Structure formats: C-alpha cells, structure tokens
C-alpha cells in the first residue's frame, strides 16, 4: 500500500516507546499520517491505543523513553497539551471528563477564543458565537439544554461522545484523534457522529480513529487500517483489513511466542 509521498506527513511517529511507571506500553510504534487521510487503529484491549492518542495530545502521566513525535515537521515532545491544541491537535477522549460548575457553552467559548487568538483571528462577538454554536449543535442533534449544562456532568454515555465530536467541529483542528468515539453509541448516535466526522473530513484534515468495531468504518471509510498489538503496529492495510479482523480476531496477528533456548 503506497502512501502518497508528495504530501509531507502532518504526524510522524518514529520508534515510539512509552512507559507508565515500570510498565512499557508502546514498544516501538511507527505511524505516518498525512493531510487528507483517515487512519483507523484497531487492536485488543490494553494494546496501547489510548496510550498512543494520549501521548500525542500531551496527556501527563506517561514517560516517553525513546522515539519521536513529529507534528508538522517539528518535535512536539516538549510541548504542553494546550500548545499542541493551539497547533491544531484534537483528542476526543475515550472517557470524556466531567467538569462540575463549567457550562458547556462557556467551555467551548473559552476554548474557541484561545484557538482563534493562536490563529491570529479576531474575537467572536457573543451573538456570532451563539449563532455559530447553535448551528454546530443542531448538526450534532444536540439538545440546546445540553449547552447550558455543566460539561459532561450527568450526560449519558452517548451524549458525552457526541459532545466530543461537537467540540471537534467547533474547534476545527487539523489533526483529530478519535479514541473509541463510537463505543457505546446507539445506531442513530453512530450515524450522527459519523456524519460529523465526514463533514470534518477533507484535504486539509487528518483523522486517526481508534475503534474496536468494523461498524463505524461502514460510515467513515478509512484510507488505512493499522493493527496495534502489545505496543507495536503489526499489520497495516486498507479498509478490507478491518473486515478480516472482524471475522478472524487478532490471534493470527500475534507474534509467535519466542522460542525457549
């Protein structure tokens, strides 16, 4: 599968090793993602998928022991999560966090202002922002009431996931990492989320989508599918790989146990 080379990758992961405490989770991961592409990452529980998306977003708690994360041609290893976000990286969390006392609308407005400022754009007047947000929320089938509520507090599982995609669509990043955004969604919500992602998709966007299910890939057709097992990408392919995995599971891709001497 030849990757188009005229396009310099927006994200380039090179021999990435990541530990939590003494536990090495990513063990030499390589991945290259270019604008215009959608990559799906699949793999068994605990293989390191969230660890990967988290370290790209700059979540604390992980130690990078070796390797590089290159974004738009520069290493982002030393950057704080907010700097990365302002450069266009977005992570839809597998478990979105509840923010007591912070209303969804206020949260989105503060975030958007921070990003617009970083992009050298002018402040949006409240009215403009409200109108903009209203349209985005409508597209996500978001009850207007959820905007007034505290971020994710008391949201259903599906509402939390839709909220992540709404944030993506409002903040308009360049690279979106979606960590199991499809898990726990009913069929209607899955369609809404997929629609949101497909609307976002474009020649100047890149998407890395972590999933356990072929289901979402029927709606969002990936350009590449990668299989992550025990902290390494063991197989890459086109969207047909996902179907193969659905049918056969991961066992056949596991490395044979090392021969005892």
């Amino acid at each position, binding site marked *: 599968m030849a990757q188009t080379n005229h396009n310099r990758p927006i994200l380039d992961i090179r021999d990435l090793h990541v530990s939590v405490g003494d536990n090495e989770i990513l063990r030499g991961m390589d991945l290259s993602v270019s604008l215009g592409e959608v990559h799906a990452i699949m793999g068994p529980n605990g293989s390191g998928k969230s660890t990967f998306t988290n370290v790209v*977003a*700059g*979540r*604390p708690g992980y130690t990078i022991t070796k390797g590089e994360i290159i974004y738009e041609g520069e290493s982002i290893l030393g950057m*704080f*999560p*907010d700097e*990365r*976000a*302002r450069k266009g990286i*977005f*992570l839809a*969390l597998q478990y*979105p*966090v*509840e*923010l*007591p*006392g*912070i209303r969804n609308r*206020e*949260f989105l407005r*503060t*975030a958007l202002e*921070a*990003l617009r400022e*970083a992009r050298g754009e002018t402040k949006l007047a409240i009215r403009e922002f409200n109108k903009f947000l209203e349209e985005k929320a409508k597209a996500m089938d978001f009850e207007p009431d959820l905007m007034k509520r*505290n971020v994710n507090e008391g949201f259903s599982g599906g509402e939390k996931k839709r909220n992540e995609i709404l*944030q993506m669509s409002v*903040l308009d990043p360049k690279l979106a990492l979606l960590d199991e955004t499809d898990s726990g969604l009913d069929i209607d919500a899955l369609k809404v989320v997929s629609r949101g992602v497909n609307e976002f998709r474009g020649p100047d966007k890149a998407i890395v989508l972590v999933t356990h299910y072929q289901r979402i890939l029927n709606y969002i057709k990936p350009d590449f599918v990668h299989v992550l097992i025990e902290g390494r990408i063991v197989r890459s392919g086109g969207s047909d790989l996902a179907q193969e995995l659905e049918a056969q599971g991961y066992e056949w891709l596991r490395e044979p146990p090392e021969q005892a001497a």
Partner: protein
Amino acid sequence: MTQTPTAAATDRYVDQFNALREEREKEPLWLRDLRREAFDYFQRMGWPIDEKRDEAWKYTDVKPIARASFRLPDAPGAALTDEDIVRLLPFDEGMSRVVFIDGHYAPEVSRIRQPDHASVRRLKEAIQQDESFVHGHLARYSAPHHDASVALNTTFFRDGVFIYTDRPLSAPVHVVYVTSEHADPVVTYPRTLVVAGTNAEVTLIESYVSLGTRNHFTDPVTEIALGEGSHVTHYRLLLENTDSYSIGHVRPCLGPDSTYKSVVYEAGSGLMRLDLEVLIEGPGAFADLRGLYLTRGKQHLDNLVSIDHAKPHGKSRLYYKGILDDESRAVFGGTVYVQPGADKTDAYQEDKNLLLSDRAEADSKPSLEIYADDVKCGHGATAGAVADEAIFYLRSRGIDEQTASRLLIKGFASEILDEVGIEALRVFLEERTTQSLPRFQAGLAA
C-alpha cells in the same frame, strides 16, 4: 503525682469559672443555674478524646484543644475603626452590624439599625431587659449537655447577639466576632440567639475573623428558632487564621412551614469542627443547607451536619463542596434522620470534593436513617475528583493552564456561591475563594 496536660487544662477552666463568680452574681438565677449545670457537665465529660472519642469524632482529634490552656481576655486586645471592618469584610453596607473584639462588644464599629417590632441587640443587654423572653429560648435549642464545646460556651459566654422579630427584618444583621493578636492563646465564646416569630424574615451573617496569625480558640454557639411560616437566611463565614481552632455548634429549629437557608463558608481555621444540627420540628418545613470549604497547608476542617425530620412533609437539601490543596484534610459527615411519623419527607444530600493535591484527603460520609413511610431520600458523594484530569481536558482544548485552573476552581465553587443572594457578599466570597488557593493565581503546576 504529675498532672496530665488535659487535667491541667481542666484546672484552668475551674480557675476561670471561679474567677467569674462575681460577674455571675449579677446575672439572673436561671442563668447562673444554667452555667453551673453546663460546667458540671464539662467537668464530668471533658473533651471527646482518647477513650471518649466516639464515632462522631472518628476523624477529628481535639487533643490539641483539650491539652491547651486558653486565657479569657478581660478586655479587647485591639481597637478597630470602621475602615478596618470594611477592609476585612467589605460587604455590609446598609446592614446592621454588631462587632465583638475578643468577646467584648465594640460599640465604635457597631451600628444597629433598630427596627420597629423587632429587637436586634447585644445578648447581655437582652438578658437584662428582656429576661423572661430570653430565658424561654436561650439554651433551649443547643442543650448545654450536647457536648464539651457547647457546655463550655454555655458556661463562659459573655455576650453575643440577640435577634427577635415577628415581621420581615428590612436589613440583614452582620455579626462580627473578631479575635485580636495576643502573645498567649486566648479563647472566646460567641453566642448568638435568633428568634424569628410567625412569618418573620431574618438574614443573619456571622463572620469569624482573626487579626493576627497566632493560635487562638473560638467556641461559638448559634441558636435559631423559626416560627411558623418564617424565613431565616444564615451565612456563616469562617475566616480565622490557619493556626487557630474553632469548635462550633449551630442549631436551627424549624417550625411549621418555615424555611431555613444556610451557606457555610469555611476558608480559615487550622482545626475546625462545626456541628450543624437542624431540627424539622413542624410539618412542611424546608431546610436548604449549602457549604463551601477550602483547605490548604495542614488545615483540618470537619463538618458534621445532621437533619432531624421529626414531622411530616418536611424537605431538606444539602449541598457541600470542598476544594482541598496541599496536605489538608476535610471531613464531611451528613446524617438525615427521618423519625417515625415524618411521612412524605423529601431529603437529599450531596458532598463533593476537588483535590488539587494528591496529599490532600477528603472523607465523606453521608448516611440516612429512615423510620417513616413514603419518604424520598437520596445522597451522593464524590470523595475526590482529582483536578489533574479536568485540567488536562481543558488544556487539550487549547485553554492555557492558568485559565484552566481558574475555570475549574471558580466553576466548582460557583455551584455554592451562586446561591448567595447578597451581591456584595457573593463578590467578596468569590474573591476570597481565589485568594485562599494560591494555585488559582499560579496555575496548577505539574
């Protein structure tokens, strides 16, 4: 034989009690009896330490208080001007204000707007001028044998505030209990008594402040009687220094269809325990209890809130929140009793904590005891959402660290502070909240 520190401290109380004999001789007989009864109780029971430390004191050790000797100041240790008060507590414009410094009334900074059909005055004065009325209420709600601190307060209180009204009181009453800086640890026993008659409305603000940074002890008791259909709004601000001790008792007794709303704000004290014991004494009464505690350093704050639903159709709501930093500790114990016959009671309590440091500890124990039928009760508690997760989430959306911490802390506190109906007070508490948490200014450095 050498004395234990606790026994030595108890002797100190005996000396103090004897030293006040002359002052007591001027008091009515019933009050002298009351004080004697209270002091007997204290001598018999002492502080809840060692083998006397029961479940209610499981997380809080008052040994530092039991072993210390505190002096009762016989004169105020400082004089204050109006500007001083406004600087300390800039929210009481237009209110009645009653100030005590080291337990002594400070007329120069007090201004009582004496309304018709109501009485707002010093407790000492009320005992002299309205003796039988005060006799009917004082210590009726907070029984002297409640515990050591109430017993000591009843034995030694010198003055305080008395409010009686049977109409809506136009201006809130701000009571300020100040402890000034002394070379040795001093103690004060503030006493507040509010009697709201039928359909009366009262807003009471109690502020506890220290002028210095040295250790002292405050042992306050506040009794509030709510007549039928009355409304009492009660703010209690604990802003004393973080080396001080405070063991307090607040006792609202709610008559039929009355409403008691309280906001407890605790940003000070090194070792604090507050028992808020609400009695739903009449059918249809409503208690709305909110609290915000902010702890840092080695502060230890313990809130024990109990709501006793003795009559049917009562409703209670309790929301307490804490923001904990450094190695501080906050304890919340909430108990709802629904007595036999208190049918159709509707009670909910919730305590939530935000931990800014992984060395801070929150202990939260809500409990329900229900002995009636057709009752709606619930509780929720989050022992401690660690702030890091939330901070990362905010930052991952492009919000810088400082703004993220601010949003988080302000948002968390706002769920309580938004309920403060007095604008100037709310603004003061919001600012005070941000000052109490250095990390709010600096951002939560990793």
